[in-house]
């Protein structure tokens, strides 16, 4: 029984009536054929029909009345507030908003941004500095860490993304990062892309702390030397036998 009790009389079964006998009761039609519901409910068939019973009950005061809100005139939004609304809308859709894109579309962007920073109602609007741009988001529906990740994804520098997130994960959780982390949402990197990024990481001095190893199940992991020891990283990458 998956969806709860079905009390007798809950379902009204309408029979497909013969046009000649429509409007006449079972006695008149010469046979009272039980419906499936009636058969099922057997001797409960004498109980009153639910909706009729409910309608017969006296009215009572609604303990949870809907709030009546007075219709308000829509407030006129300032250009700064409109900008904030736009950023919020995109944040609600898990999107950050690049400064360069805004500056391209909005003529007076700098002054609008300055007004936004001053506006008390726009305090939720924050920014994160990427390598190539500044990105705006609303803290009402996006976290700072996610904005950081979104900015990395936006800038499409996978080597930098891997390095930054590996260091972040080693410091924050602390855990080594499996290669599969970057295949998932919101990175969606392919293995060839990751391999190319690994080549960059291997040769660029700024990434020399990023190390790779393979655990006993054949999964490759990254960790950041200086933040985590290889021995500890390897130990953390070995999962216990899975149990529920």
């Amino acid at each position: 029984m998956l969806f709860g009790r079905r009390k007798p009389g809950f379902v009204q079964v309408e029979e497909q009536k013969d046009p000649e006998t429509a409007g006449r009761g079972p006695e008149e039609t010469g046979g009272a054929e039980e419906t499936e519901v009636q058969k099922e409910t057997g001797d409960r068939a004498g109980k009153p029909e639910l909706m009729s019973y409910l309608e017969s009950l006296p009215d009572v005061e609604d303990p949870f009345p809907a709030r009546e809100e007075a219709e308000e005139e829509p407030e006129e939004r300032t250009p700064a507030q409109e900008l904030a609304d736009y950023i919020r809308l995109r944040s609600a859709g898990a999107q950050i908003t690049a400064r360069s894109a805004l500056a391209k579309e909005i003529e007076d962007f700098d002054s609008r941004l300055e007004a936004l920073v001053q506006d008390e109602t726009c305090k939720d609007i924050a920014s994160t500095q990427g390598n190539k741009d500044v990105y705006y988001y609303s803290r009402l529906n996006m976290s700072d860490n996610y904005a950081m990740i979104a900015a990395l994804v936006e800038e499409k520098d996978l080597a930098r993304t891997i390095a930054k997130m590996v260091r972040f994960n080693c410091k924050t959780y602390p855990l080594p990062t499996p290669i599969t982390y970057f295949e998932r949402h919101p990175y969606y990197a392919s293995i060839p892309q990751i391999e190319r990024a690994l080549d960059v990481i291997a040769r660029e001095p700024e990434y020399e702390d990023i190390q790779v190893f393979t655990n006993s199940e054949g999964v490759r992991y990254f960790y950041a030397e200086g933040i985590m020891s290889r021995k500890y990283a390897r130990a953390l990458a070995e999962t216990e036998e899975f149990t529920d």
Partner: protein
Amino acid sequence: MAVYGWMGKLLRVNLTTGAITTEDTTQYQKYIGGMGFGYRIIYNEVPLETHPYDEASKFVMAVGPLTGSGVPCSGRMNISFLSSWSKGNSILDAHMGGHIGPQLKYAGYDAVVVEGKSPTPVYLKIEDDKVSIEDASHIWGKGTFESNRIMTLECGREFDTAAIGQAGEHLVNYSTLNTSFGNSGGAGIGAIMGSKNLKGVAIHGTGSVKVADVAKLQELNNYMLRDLIGANNNHNVPAVPQSWAEYSSVSGKNRWSGAPGRAWEKAPGGPIDTGEQPCGDINKIAYRCLKGVFDYGEVAAHYIVKQGGCSSCPIRCYTEYEMDPLAEYDLPVNTSNTCMPVLYGTDFYPDGVKDFKYEGDARVVINGASSHAQDDLGLWCNYGNLYREFKWLCTSGRIHEFIPDEEYNSIPWQWQKDGDPRFVVEIMRRIAYKEGELAVLGEGTLAVMEKWNLGKEWMDMVSASNQNVTYNGYPKHHGAEDSAQIGQLFNLMYNRDCMIHHLTNVAQSGAPYEVSKSVMEGFFGKGCFDAQKKYTPINANKIKVAKWAFNGKQIHDSATVCNWMWPMTQSPSKERNYAGDLDLESKFMSAVTGIDYTRESLEFDAERISNMLRVMTAISFNIHFGSKNLREDHDAIPAWIFDKEPDFQPFEEGTIKMDRDDMEKAKDMFYEAMGWDVKTGIPTRATLEKFELGDMADDLAKRGILPR
């Protein structure tokens, strides 16, 4: 007469005489319900010398004041009885979710005590105060799915049913009671019922649970769903980054697996993307779990119809699958499960399995076949020991020592080599029907050791096949790997695997260590919670946590609420600094029962139940082995827990191998905290009197095992 929460009545069914009577349960309310009721009744009425399959044996299906009350995750039913397979044959429990527990409440009962033995196969039909023992001779011999279907057809679709399978009928120790959604009560209850010729139960109730303060109940519900609840096992960060969340699980493997791009792909009408499920959006909670993806990875989504679950639970952790490749093998394609049966089928194929329709789907499909078979046969696994021991048998090189040639040759090994799902189905069938020497695996780990002359060293060996946490015949259930000494301690306490999730829910949540540490230390004090694989010596605050988790499990199995979801230790809410609310169980108890519970008073009642467990275990060990010392005879820890990971020393960064001296100290401190004699681990008279268990103290004294 019903009071708030409790229904005030228990049903007693004597299958020998056919007598059906009711009794008032008011006298049992200090035992809360569920497990507490069961233990007191079994202690009062069943001498612990009784063999579990004797006519004199009884079992108690019991629920608690919160069951069916509308409290989130309150669909559980507890079944207490004597063990047929673990050391000492002492008291233990099966637990099952689904809808049958609430139905029992709506029918008007807090518990059903089943005693005696029917001369012929029967099932128990409970319809409010109309209770009857129905003929089941036409169902006997059938699997649980068909049995449940027939009982539902006969009784009506408004009934919830549960049945034993062929395993229970054949008195296989590893047997279950199953609903058709994969909810199973394990630990051997199937054979207990089978020994009584009781095929199943069908329950329908038209009543309701009286709630003392409905407005408060609703307020607490909204609070819990909005601010506290995470995903399955109350994991409080998502598996992959979501835009509202500060953190995510780096491994990508935690129980909040729902995410953008992951869908219930076989949902009628088209795939349903699980999307983001922000904290506070109570209408999206059901999309968080996506258990199949946690179990198998994203390939599982190809087979997911939807996520189902239990009464009053928003989590929906039962993945409902349609695995069409199984039709090629003439096997059922639909299965629903969340736990062991759907996880370990591939252990029957040590040489590996092959993909079916999608890359990486081998595990999914094989487990679909094994899960359906295991549930249909009503076979239990002892939290994975069944699978591990079969795998050990195949890979040890010793199979011919134990399995006679004729039987060995009759096993369809080619199916195993081919990765054919019919192999695991056939092996499970043999075990459920007690066919051949292979069926020893279904008698229990101790039976395997004894019959195959394996010796104590088999339980001491360092091997993935050996997860035995004591020498009593059951494996660890989230032990030292999650919480060092804390997990190891509470794993020692029962007569089966402990089923405690208090610590694993925090340790594996995916949240940063400093975040979880801050939450735990806020509740229990400094040093109470170690980082993963970086544990520290035992201290007083860790003992507080161990005691809280141990007693807390008794709360959940007595109240009843789900042991996987509760307690609400952490929260996904950044505004709350990710801290949950450990007073919530008592708040709900107060709202539902009208009795002013506090966390302390509820834990006190639970500790009473913990002491009943300990006393009954001590008595059983004394009866069967002449033991006067549970510390040595019940709580001994196998060597592998101290000897694993030879490249590491205890307390070194990177290991969970425990230290022998440290664990002995941990036992000292834990026994002291529980008011037990440190030398024997048995409760003292003072402790038992404190919990109004003086009769049990007298019993221990009469047997010469009450500590001085």
